């Protein structure tokens, strides 16, 4: 057992840091550090910059244009990017559909799609959930009826993240309505410009529009865009979800947020004393700091154990829950730190009670607290993750 990074790992880390310092555009970094809403163009630009460096897909094997990095190196890359304030890369192409294509796609699909994901040319989004099928994905209703070399797709998808910018969507559709719920599902790749697709953004409680409802009205999809076998989509879907969970750990983001919280607490006063010196607040902050340190080790332990596995095990559920709990607790503590300054939410001109220099900053803290409620809901709610732990790890 050796719990420091090796010389090589430290060298790698330094290399990533140097790259970030030289290549992460300042404006993108600032927007990200201020917790502003994601700008689509920032994400595209950053993907192009990474791709130019050959780092477009940290988690892919070299044969598909990935880095071939070890799990620990990938972890360090993610960590440093998050600490530096790089915008998160979009997972939908890189970490969701790509692993499915590599494993189950045919060579034509691989050759066409993977390079375009890597370069950022194709923005992908996800067509899994439906209004009646959230946690219970297998009850999805979107139909795909075979018509010659096409499927004709009709139905509605929900909770589609950032699909308003997307070029492609991967969808679970029902191709055999008479089969049991988990049979009879197929996995289709659909061009977002196909006639019959309507995207309607959903306004969230923080005022943003990061998710959409998508309607399919007799959308014609070439059979060639089906991944794998007809009616075997559930297998691919589960494979994809396993990969999704493993990517949520986000120790770097938490560490960066915690650092920001410490700065806020150093300037916010209570009775003239910085909040950082107030015993109760300090202790909550310390508790989170320690919790995150432990979680960093827990994450690395799971990564190390998974190193030789094809897909992450159910331990990924532990990471998903803990990662989101920590992020939510940080955002909660931030909210508590700013007190009544959480109240002013939108204004033409910042009011004096929130110093002008901090307005953007502080008003984003409340928005982030609201937005982060989603963390324990999406990507398989934390209740679903606990079910997985109970069934697959504890065998209950």
């Amino acid at each position, binding site marked *: 057992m050796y719990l420091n990074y090796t010389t090589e790992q430290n060298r790698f880390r330094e290399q990533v840091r140097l790259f970030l310092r030289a290549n992460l555009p300042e404006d993108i970094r600032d927007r990200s550090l201020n917790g502003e809403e994601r700008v689509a163009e920032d994400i595209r630009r950053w993907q192009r910059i990474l791709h130019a460096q050959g780092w477009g897909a940290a988690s892919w094997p070299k044969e598909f244009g990935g880095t071939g990095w070890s799990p620990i190196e990938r972890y360090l890359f993610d960590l440093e990017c998050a600490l530096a304030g790089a915008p998160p890369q979009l997972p939908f192409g890189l970490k969701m559909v790509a692993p499915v294509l590599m494993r189950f796609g045919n060579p034509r699909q691989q050759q066409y799609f993977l390079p375009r994901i890597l370069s950022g040319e194709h923005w992908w989004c996800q067509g899994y959930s439906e209004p009646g099928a959230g946690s*219970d994905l297998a009850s999805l209703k979107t139909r795909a009826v075979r018509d010659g070399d096409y499927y004709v797709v009709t139905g509605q998808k929900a909770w589609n993240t950032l699909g308003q910018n997307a070029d492609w969507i991967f969808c679970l559709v029902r191709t055999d309505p008479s089969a049991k719920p988990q049979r009879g599902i197929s996995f289709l790749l659909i061009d977002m410009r196909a006639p019959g697709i309507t995207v309607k953004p959903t*306004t969230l409680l923080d005022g943003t529009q990061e998710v959409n409802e998508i309607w399919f009205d007799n959308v014609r999809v070439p059979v060639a865009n089906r991944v794998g076998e007809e009616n075997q989509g559930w297998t691919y879907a589960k494979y994809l979800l396993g990969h999704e969970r493993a990517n949520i750990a986000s120790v770097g983001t938490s560490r960066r947020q915690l650092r920001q919280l410490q700065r806020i607490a150093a300037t916010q006063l209570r009775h003239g004393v910085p909040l950082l010196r107030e015993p109760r607040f300090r202790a909550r902050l310390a508790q989170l700091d320690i919790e995150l340190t432990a979680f960093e080790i827990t994450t690395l332990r799971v990564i190390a154990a998974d190193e030789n596995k094809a897909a992450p095990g159910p331990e990924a559920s532990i990471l998903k829950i803990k990662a989101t709990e920590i992020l939510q607790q940080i955002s909660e503590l931030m909210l508590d730190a700013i007190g009544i300054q959480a109240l002013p939410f939108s204004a033409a001109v910042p009011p004096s009670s929130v110093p002008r220099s901090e307005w953007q900053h502080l008003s984003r803290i409340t928005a982030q607290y609201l937005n982060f409620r989603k963390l324990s809901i999406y990507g398989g709610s934390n209740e679903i993750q606990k079910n997985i732990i109970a069934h697959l790890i504890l065998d209950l």
Partner: protein
Amino acid sequence: MDFSFSDEQQMLLDSTRRLLTDNYSVQQRRQIISSPEGYSRSIWRQFSELGLLGLNIPAEEGGLEGGAISTLLVCVAMGEALIVEPYMSSAVMATRAIAKLSSSAQRSEWLPRLNSGTVIAVLAHDQTNGAAAQAVFDDTVAARSQNAWRLQGRKAIVYHAPLADVLLISAKLDAASGTGTGLFAVPRDAPGLRLEAFTTVDGQRAADIVLENVEVPDHARIGGDVSATLPMVLDYGAAALCSEAIGVLDKLFSMTVEYCRARVQFGQPIGRFQALQHRMAEMLMHLEQARSMAYLAAFWCESEEASRRAAVLSGAKVIIGRAARFVGQQAIQLHGGMGMTDELMVGHYFKRLLAFEVRFGSTESHLQEYAARFLEPDRDGL
């Protein structure tokens, strides 16, 4: 001990609820919020017609003179409907301040107009009441000169100030003018008074107030030194806010239970899942504890026993504040993705609770206040 309400009180609650059910649908509320005024004059008129605006006006001045318990019930109903009208600001706090502190001439000047809804008044004191948090600004000063007062300073985050016709502004008297704190009725369009308006996280209009050489005549001063009397008005307002929170919690909880009964996943309503059932049982327990403290706050908020009144109100803010956070977060969680949308009301109730937590002193500041004042060996609780 008697937890029942009089027939009159019950009728008041019922008629307020009916008015809001009929005239404050989700759609209507949405329109009101996005209107330029940010509140509904029509609803306000109906409040007046029902007597709600006179609830804190003495009978001899034409009011209903309902007192704290009636105000509790009305504010619960207001919370259930999640109104954005300045009921608490104007009809409870400002009206009470004028009714309790002002001269008979001032009462005759203001109370009838407040009662009829033709004037909206808003009290602007230091943000953070009583408890251990720090006021954002604490620099408003009044100086006397030639039968007039000149006000200078700022007030932070005054709910409904942009809707007010008149602002009741507290200010420290400068050394030359006397001692203590004065309260001044200042027209919103007084020269030198500027509002920095914004929308709050819970969808209400508010503003910082900037006062630069604002001059008001002598008779605009309400009461004498209000240092000792203003806290009673503020505590009365805090109790009303607690009641409103109970209405919010009630509604949020019942819509969550309803949703879990209706939402089917894995072939059954999600309310059949034991983990969620237990969560809702815990929410109910928070809610019942919160309701108890809101009752206690309403019962004590008129008391002259300042120290016990403060303890009860701190206690109420703590218990209801914790309930607000737990019930609010869990309501979103149990609604799943739907809870994250602006479309469902759950998020709006959630945000009102968020605002409750920090208004009139945060949960944490009240807990520390309570601990500082009331933890002595051999005390037997409240």
